[in-house]
């Protein structure tokens, strides 16, 4: 079905999974690529969609897709998980977290284990639920585990502002927010980098717009195409990147124009900016990157759980056998890890990239383990 203005309502999902249209785009990409190009999709949601639809197989050998660090669960460093475990074990405290973080291993267990041992760990879908919890439980402290990229930070900023407006003092955040453009720059500056073009994460740009990417595309002469998450979006984004590469261009383009405006979302950006400031951040796999994270501004320090509870600094001890650092930089594929599917599975993950649905290791495990290694048809 080809949607039209007169036809049935657009739902903005199924229309973008049309198999015949996807096949036409795949043929066009094969036709246009004169050699193999290596592209990185930045966001874990895109990795998941690519694996599910088997786009990597359909585009082989002319496109080599490597999977970027755009999964917040995957890049949260172990010492932050250890801080979460410390807080969640304290009596009189509700620890509210997105569900994905419960299985991420710290140096001595995970939040699931703390919960099983009696810790009050609660899964929330939205940071605003944690504010409600604090209002409803005035005798308890509520700490929200605030992770995520520019997509999630506006929601946490809103939670802080709502808590401030409500005048509550039993709500705070364990903040570990990170920003995409500094990570792209770090990847490109690596002498081992093989990435020739990027599919930037559409929803991050829905908030931030595209201006931050222009100097990066210029400096490294690399196409950066802001792309959506459905098969047709991803294929069109890849086609746009290939067209640029074949013409030796390196520009920022928007494929996901139904959602992304050039200058992003002004209301979200300004609220985020009022609550957070840029700080140096530690990424699992990439290490310390200057100005790549968000911290609470001084006027909101009463909401900083690290200060409120006098948290100690934990050392960063990544498991030696896990190669997720190389995977997050696009230098290795999950199947090249000796632990993959053996000592490391989604049920008992060694590294965070095996935990989240959007982690590259988990996506490969789900769609590329031997029993499912036949290329999947498009959804």
């Amino acid at each position, binding site marked *: 079905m080809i949607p039209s203005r007169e036809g049935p309502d657009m739902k*903005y999902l199924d229309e973008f999974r049309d198999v015949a249209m996807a096949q036409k785009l795949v043929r066009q990409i094969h036709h246009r690529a004169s050699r193999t190009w290596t592209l990185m999709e930045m966001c874990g949601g895109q990795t998941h969609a690519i694996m599910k639809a088997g786009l990597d197989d359909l585009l082989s050998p002319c496109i080599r897709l490597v999977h970027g660090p755009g999964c917040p669960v995957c890049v949260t460093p172990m010492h932050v998980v250890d801080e979460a475990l410390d807080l969640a074990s304290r009596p009189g405290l509700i620890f509210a977290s997105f569900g994905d973080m419960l299985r991420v291993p710290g140096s001595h267990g995970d939040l699931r284990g703390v919960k099983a041992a009696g810790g009050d760990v609660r899964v929330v879908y939205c940071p605003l639920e944690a504010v409600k919890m604090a209002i409803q439980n005035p005798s308890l402290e509520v700490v929200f585990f605030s992770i995520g990229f520019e997509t999630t930070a506006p929601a946490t900023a*809103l939670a802080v502002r709502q808590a401030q407006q409500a005048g509550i003092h039993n709500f705070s955040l364990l903040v570990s927010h990170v920003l995409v453009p500094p990570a792209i720059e770090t990847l490109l500056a690596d002498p081992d980098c093989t990435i020739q073009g990027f599919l930037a994460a559409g929803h991050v740009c829905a908030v931030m717009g595209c201006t931050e990417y222009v100097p990066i595309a210029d400096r490294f002469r690399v196409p950066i195409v802001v792309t959506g998450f459905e098969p047709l979006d991803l294929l069109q984004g890849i086609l746009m990147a290939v067209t640029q590469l074949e013409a030796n261009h390196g520009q920022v383009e928007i494929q996901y124009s139904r959602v992304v405006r050039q200058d992003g979302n002004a209301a979200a950006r300004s609220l985020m900016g009022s609550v957070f400031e840029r700080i140096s951040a530690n990424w699992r796999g990439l290490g310390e990157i200057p100005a790549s994270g968000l911290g609470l501004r001084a006027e909101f320090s009463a909401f900083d759980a690290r200060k409120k509870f006098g948290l100690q600094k934990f050392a960063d001890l990544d498991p030696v056998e896990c190669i997720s650092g190389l995977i997050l930089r696009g230098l290795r594929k999950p199947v090249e890890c000796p632990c993959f599917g053996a000592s490391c599975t989604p049920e008992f993950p060694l590294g965070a990239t095996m935990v989240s649905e959007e982690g590259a290791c988990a996506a490969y495990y789900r769609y590329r383990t031997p029993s499912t290694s036949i290329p999947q048809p498009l959804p």
Partner: protein
Amino acid sequence: MCLAVPGKIESIHGEEALTRMGRINFGGVIREASLAFVPEARQGDYVIVHVGCALSVIDEEEALQIFQYINAMRDDSVPGGP
């Protein structure tokens, strides 16, 4: 967790900028979401929602472009293709 999904605004309540909420229909499942970041959103609009907050109003004109683009594309690899 970075998943963000499109849904249709069924109704809007709350007038104050920070607490404006909407009932959003995600293919039959109704959930509440904050509309604090989309002051321009009206009932009947489709929005992209992430962790309980609408981040963008979907532009229908722009959405249709990809289909026009693919339909207009010459299918060079198929002999006699459209």
